[in-house]
């Protein structure tokens, strides 16, 4: 297949708006190709979209569905010859997840948080999500074994546990959520900061974060640690964010990538001492990212209207539920995690929500290097992923931002700098934030670019970059982004002008890291004891069986020699 004459944006290969053909053979990008030609003359062509942080599968997601039938009755689409029925807006059913991402031109999406013991459930849902290539990040920030290894300063054993946990969960990378706080929530409390000891374990969140970062680099995992800060969602928490980032400055990356990826930065860029004097501190955060090179972030942009908040940060969810007097689901997970789910509404006239909306945009617009900022809504926490076209047009058009601000609370512009920002992103920057950067941050070599050997995941938008001015024609741009003219996945056209043409089952990435046998043996002694005494299931029934991982792609990091010096 050949995509002819498109205006191509492929930032990873230094291509910004060049007219060129793209050749596809055997599901990959090639130098030459024959066969079907797709006329993309003058149209915007990009790699398939990559979402590095979205909640698409697992217990939290299904809990969001079960507790909100009102959400599932919205967005209902009947079954077709190709598609299963679709339901839901903030928490779509599995099929709608695949179809809706594909319609927008996205072809790779990573689930952001899975406890090891719940991974079987996560994979059960991942295999029901059509079209997309997927992976799931595994939670490590509150596991007893992690805290005990950190307490003993035994990073090699911690690395062995991380490797074992990724294997057990068929997971892709190390996710850390409110480290220590999830354990504290087991008795209804929380940690107040990175140096506040975790009850009963005599370690601090700071030690957990550093330990896991060291283990992550010792294992040379494709992705860095993926961190949801302590105190997330609280006024004044930007200082916790900066303090945490400083903890990781001296850690050497084992690969050409960041040392830490910060999840949904928007929720951790808050100033003020309460919701009354709540204000944006995004400029301070962006300034830090501009001056340092060890961290990346994703936006966690807020979208007005319905959302469903779901996170392993259970204390936060309890606070949310109390503030909003909303329904509240909680799920504490033995020896590993806690989590919560609360349906939410972001109000256009609510000052706090307006400031949150502004912060996400400030972070993207004030951080100079788009490679450091991924576009997300932390679906469905900030809002559903189907709103990405809205976010992109907000980044590309100052007039659109001004029009939005005009509809908000009159105090809002005083609480952030959003109204003063001129920057309007171009297609190259958008392609970085939605394609090239997420793939690089995740360490996916064959994603997010159109060079030979890359997966033939391509999006063609019905939009001529050389004729359309996104600053002015943002409505037109948003429409074009919402339904790609063509979405090509692995060399096959899966969506055309919003219609799903075929729904093949995508792949699931997971990482199998090697550790010295001695470390693994020391670890298994600990684990056997934990299963004998504390877990409610047997070790032999714990690990995710192969039957649950459809089309697996196993990534094996290069064997390590630099282990000692990192430790």
């Amino acid at each position, binding site marked *: 297949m050949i995509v002819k004459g498109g205006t191509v944006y492929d930032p990873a290969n230094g291509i910004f708006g060049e007219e060129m053909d793209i050749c596809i053979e055997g599901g990959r990008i090639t130098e030459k190709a024959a066969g079907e030609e797709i006329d993309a003359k003058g149209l915007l062509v990009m790699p398939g979209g990559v979402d590095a942080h979205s909640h698409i599968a697992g217990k939290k997601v299904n809990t969001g569905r079960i*507790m*909100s*039938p*009102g959400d599932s*009755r919205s967005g209902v689409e009947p079954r077709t010859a190709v598609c299963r029925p679709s339901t839901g807006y903030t928490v779509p059913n599995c099929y709608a997840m695949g179809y809706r991402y594909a319609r927008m031109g996205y072809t790779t999406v990573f689930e952001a948080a899975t406890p090891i013991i719940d991974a079987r459930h996560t994979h059960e849902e991942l295999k029901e999500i059509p079209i997309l290539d997927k992976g799931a990040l595994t939670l490590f920030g509150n596991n007893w074994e992690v805290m005990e290894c950190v307490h003993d300063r035994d990073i090699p054993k911690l690395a062995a546990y991380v490797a074992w946990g990724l294997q057990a969960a068929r997971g892709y990378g190390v996710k850390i959520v409110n480290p220590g706080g999830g354990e504290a929530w087991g008795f209804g409390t929380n940690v107040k900061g990175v140096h506040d000891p975790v009850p009963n374990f005599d370690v601090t969140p700071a030690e957990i974060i550093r330990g896991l970062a060291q283990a992550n680099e010792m294992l040379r995992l494709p992705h860095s640690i993926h961190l949801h800060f302590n105190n997330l969602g609280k006024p004044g928490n930007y200082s916790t964010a900066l303090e945490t980032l400083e903890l990781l400055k001296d850690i050497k990356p084992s690969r050409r990538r960041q040392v830490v990826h910060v999840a949904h930065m928007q929720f951790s860029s808050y100033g003020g001492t309460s919701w009354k004097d709540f204000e944006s501190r995004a400029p301070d955060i962006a300034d830090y990212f501009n001056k340092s090179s060890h961290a990346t972030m994703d936006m966690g942009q807020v979208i007005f209207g319905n959302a469903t908040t779901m996170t392993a940060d259970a204390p936060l969810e309890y606070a949310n539920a109390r503030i909003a007097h909303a*329904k509240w689901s909680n799920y504490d997970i033995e020896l590993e995690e806690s989590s919560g789910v609360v349906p939410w509404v972001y109000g256009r006239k609510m000052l706090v929500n307006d400031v949150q909306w502004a912060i996400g945009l400030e972070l993207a617009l004030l951080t100079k290097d788009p490679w450091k900022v991924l576009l997300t809504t932390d679906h469905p926490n900030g809002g559903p992923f189907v709103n990405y076209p809205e976010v992109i047009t907000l980044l590309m058009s100052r007039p659109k931002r001004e029009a939005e601000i005009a509809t908000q609370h009159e105090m809002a512009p005083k609480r952030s700098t959003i109204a003063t920002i001129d920057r309007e992103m171009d297609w190259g920057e958008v392609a970085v934030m939605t394609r090239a950067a997420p793939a690089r941050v995740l360490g996916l070599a064959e994603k997010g670019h159109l060079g030979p050997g890359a997966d033939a995941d391509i999006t063609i938008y019905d939009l001529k970059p050389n004729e359309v001015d996104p600053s002015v024609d943002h409505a037109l741009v948003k429409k074009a982004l919402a339904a790609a003219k063509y979405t090509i996945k692995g060399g096959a056209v899966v969506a055309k002008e919003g219609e799903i043409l075929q729904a093949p089952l995508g792949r699931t990435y997971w990482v199998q890291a090697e550790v010295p046998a001695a470390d693994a043996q020391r670890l298994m002694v600990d684990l056997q004891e934990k299963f004998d005494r504390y877990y409610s299931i047997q070790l032999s029934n714990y690990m995710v069986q192969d039957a649950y991982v459809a089309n697996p792609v196993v990534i094996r990091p290069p064997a390590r020699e630099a282990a000692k010096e990192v430790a």
Partner: protein
Amino acid sequence: MRTISIKPLRAFEVSVEAEVISPDRLAALTFGQIRALEVWLGNRKRKLSDLFRVEGDEAPASPAETLVRLEGDFSRVKRIAEGMTAGTVEVLGGAGMHAGNGMKGGQLSIQGYADDWLGREMRGGKIIVAGSAGNYVGAGYRGEKCGMRGGEIEISGSAGAYLGEHMCGGSIRVSGDAGDFPGAANQGGTIYIGGSTYLPGAEMTKGTITVGGNARVLPGYQKADVVTIEGREYQKYLGDLVEKGTGELLVAAS
């Protein structure tokens, strides 16, 4: 005034969904167009004329100038007058579930029994039931915060359980008894029950429920003063305190 009368051609083996039966959908259409409208017999898509006979005035009119008269047995026909904004729907017998769903205006009158979910999430207009009604009159959808927000429902007979659950506005008047938990979790609106009921106003935060008969009152209600309405004495309670509610529950002092 355009009158359109619709009659079932036979007894239906399973229930029928016919949300097209409302002045808003029919008023402007010719008989030909009306007969071609889509209804569902269980999982089978059918033309309206496959299941119903349509008669009356040919000439198109505005919804407000349209009367839809339903003759014969509509007790298994669901979603009659769903979302109607104007005009009149007269059901000469009973009506199936979800009659007047999300109704915004106009009048729906039902001579017989109105099955469950009458006037669910109603916004405006008026529903009059000469017979009795089933469960969830004026309620909301599962798990949603708000049921009925506006309009009026009048039931001459009795009503089933969960009358006005999650009600946020409007008024419901039941001459007879009401089943368990009327006005549960309501946040506004007024409910009058002429007869007796059981545990009214559970988790009510705002609104008023008046009971002309007996009612078992929840422990979250505090006795206030005795008030006289239209010459009749009522014991007033405030609650439901489990939700820090300030709703008013008035029960006839017997």
